[in-house]
């Protein structure tokens, strides 16, 4: 006789395969986007028409470099979650959907890697 409760037996057997992680991560990244994007908007506005030296000097400040890295990480994770929902809604057929979801992950991963590399290069440059 099984000691498991009926709920324990049913868990993980639904079509969704997972619980509310997607929703929670989407809302948490959205919440964090508010302060991070306020910082980001300030950064962009104060660097319009700036010289390359100005950008380097700003990123030498570890607070700015780290905040910018955090902004990129948070925004790209939020972007991936959002695009995943769009793909799941509109791309039909297992193959196409799978390909689109993989491309989505590749897109945000590559962009984040390029952004992180650029931020670190500028931050550590002479």
């Amino acid at each position: 006789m099984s000691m498991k409760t009926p709920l324990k037996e049913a868990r993980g057997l639904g079509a969704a395969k997972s619980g509310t992680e997607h929703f929670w991560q989407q809302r948490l990244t959205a919440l964090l986007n508010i302060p991070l994007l306020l910082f980001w908007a300030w950064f962009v506005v104060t660097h319009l028409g700036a010289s390359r030296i100005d950008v380097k000097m700003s990123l030498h400040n570890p607070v700015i470099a780290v905040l910018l890295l955090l902004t990129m990480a948070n925004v790209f994770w939020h972007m991936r979650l959002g695009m995943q929902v769009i793909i799941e809604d509109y791309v039909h057929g297992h193959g196409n959907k799978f390909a689109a979801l993989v491309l989505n992950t590749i897109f945000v991963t590559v962009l984040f890697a390029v952004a992180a590399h650029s931020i670190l290069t500028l931050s550590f440059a002479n």
Partner: protein
Amino acid sequence: MAEPRRVERPLSPHLQIYRPMLSMMMSIAHRITGAALFFGSVLFVGWLFSAAHSESLFDCAQAFFGHWFGRLVLFGFTWALMHHAFGGLRHFLWDTGRGFGLATVEKLVWANLIGSIIFTILLWVLAYGVMP
């Protein structure tokens, strides 16, 4: 698992039978602006990369964003960001179970639309004030 054979069946009436309403338009706009921002993020990463990479590439990027067309793209990006951000705040309110009354929804979507336009213009006035 074998793919089930697709049979052409009539579809139930969808979006096209509804009279367009602002709440529905703003919901669609939330998704479209999200997708636009997804691809628009390339602009900022490209700018960062050019700054990290070389003087000539950075000059190219600054020239693009200084050109009227680049400015127009940035203006569109700003509005999309504002609209998506305000739309997100609206969703936070809805997450708490509040603001679902028809009159409230109508007010919220108007606030979203007008707020996004006002803040976009404010940010650009600020940007032109800061720019050398």
